[in-house]
Every structure is written in structure tokens, then in C-alpha cells.
């Protein structure tokens, strides 16, 4: 089979050869377009995967921060409760001391006791 034979074959069947070439061109173009579409799909997929990973990370950080804020809130509430209880106890002690002081005044210094009643309540003392 030499070049002459090939040329004769091509000349004889040039229409079929042309159809095959055109078909190959169409197939090539289709495959090229398909690869372009696939590339676009992969790009979108990668973007979405990155978004999902980023959102999960952000969500995780948000949960950690919320947890920290809640712990801080509970710790602060605990401090407030302790301070409140201490204040109440101190007030109770003060009240008891005042009570004892008033009882002492009643026996030891009635004038001062009377004066305290007048001062605190505004009542008038009558002999």
C-alpha cells in the first residue's frame, strides 16, 4: 500500500472521509464543551465544599464562645449570690448587735433609748 493507493482511495471515498472528519470535529467539540462544563461543576463543588468547611469552623467557634460566655455568666451569678449572702449575714449580725445595744440602753441609759425611739419612729415620749 503506497501513497498513490491511499490517494486513490481518498479520491474515491472522499465523501465518507469528509463525513467522518466532520463527525470527529463535532465529537471533539462536544468533549471540549463537556470538559468545560465539568470544570465549572468542579469549581462550584470546590467552592461549596470550602463554604461548608468554613461554616462548620465558624459554627464551632461560635458554640465555644457561647459556652465561654455562659460559663462567665454562671460564675458571675455565683459571685453575686455569695456577695448577697455575705451582705445578708453582715446585716443580720448588725441587726443583732443593734438589738443587744438597744436592750443595754433600756437598762443602762433609758434616756438614750427614748431618744432612739423618737428619732427612729418620730413618736413622742410621754411620762
Amino acid at each position, binding site marked *: 500500500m503506497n501513497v498513490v493507493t491511499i490517494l486513490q482511495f481518498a479520491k474515491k471515498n*472522499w*465523501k465518507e472521509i*469528509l463525513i467522518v472528519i466532520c463527525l470527529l470535529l463535532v465529537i471533539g467539540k462536544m468533549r471540549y464543551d463537556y470538559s*468545560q462544563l465539568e*470544570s*465549572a461543576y468542579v*469549581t*462550584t463543588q470546590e*467552592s461549596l465544599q*470550602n*463554604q461548608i468547611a*468554613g*461554616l462548620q469552623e*465558624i*459554627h464551632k*467557634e*461560635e458554640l465555644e*464562645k*457561647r459556652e465561654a*460566655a*455562659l460559663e*462567665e*455568666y454562671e460564675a*458571675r*451569678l455565683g459571685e*453575686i449570690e455569695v*456577695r*448577697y449572702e455575705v*451582705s*445578708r449575714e453582715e*446585716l443580720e449580725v*448588725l*441587726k*443583732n448587735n*443593734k*438589738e*443587744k*445595744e*438597744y*436592750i443595754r440602753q*433600756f*437598762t443602762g441609759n433609758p434616756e438614750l433609748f427614748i431618744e*432612739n*425611739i423618737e428619732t*427612729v*419612729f418620730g413618736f413622742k415620749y*410621754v*411620762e
Partner: protein
Amino acid sequence: MILLMLSTAYADEGKFTLLGENEPAPFEGVLFDPTATSKILSEYSTVDMNCDIEVEYQLDIQGTEFKLQLDTAAIRYQSLAAEHKLMVEQKDLEIVKLQETIKKQSPLNKWWWYAGGIASGVVITYGAYRAFDGKR
């Protein structure tokens, strides 16, 4: 006031009695013993402090709750801002990559398509000419 004094005295084991007219007192009334009177006095004289303690406690509670709400809102805002930034960045990257893909078929290559179209036209026209010419 009398009710408060009575209830306080009764609860804390202070004693009191009622004096009627013509009893050894200048007027009728209620007689409290020193313990009951001292309790009433001490209770009354510390009521402001008690109120201050309660107010401070309630304000602290409220302030802490508001701080938690504020912190939570700030955290949510930071997350939303980060989500927005991430989405914009990823979309920008996606746009750049898609633009690169589109550019391969963009008008920048139009001369290739133009030349290809002319060549194809010539070939098809020549082929048709030969085909029809051959049938004569």
C-alpha cells in the same frame, strides 16, 4: 406600722401587752418589753440597708443577664460577619475560576473561530462543487 411591729415582736419571742384606760399608764396602748422594742427598733433602723442590699442584688442579676444577652448578640454578629466574609471570598474565587473557564471560549478567541469558519466554508463549498460537478 402597728401590724408590722406586732408581727415582728410575735415571731421573735418579744412580749407585749395591752394597757387599758385607768391602768398605770397615761393612755391606753400596747406595751412592748425591751426585747420586742429592740427588735422593732433594730429592724426598722436597718430596713434601708436591707433595701440597698436587695436592690444591689437585683441590679447585679439584671446587669449580668443583660451582659450575657449582649455577649451572645456580639458573638452572633461576629459569626454572621465571618460567614458573610467567607461566602464573599469563596464566591469571588468561584467567579474568577468560572471566568477563566469562560475566557477559553470568549471573544478573545474569535479570530480562531472566524478562520475556522472560513476554512470550513471553503472546504464544504469545494466539496459540494465537486460532488455536484461529478454528477453531471
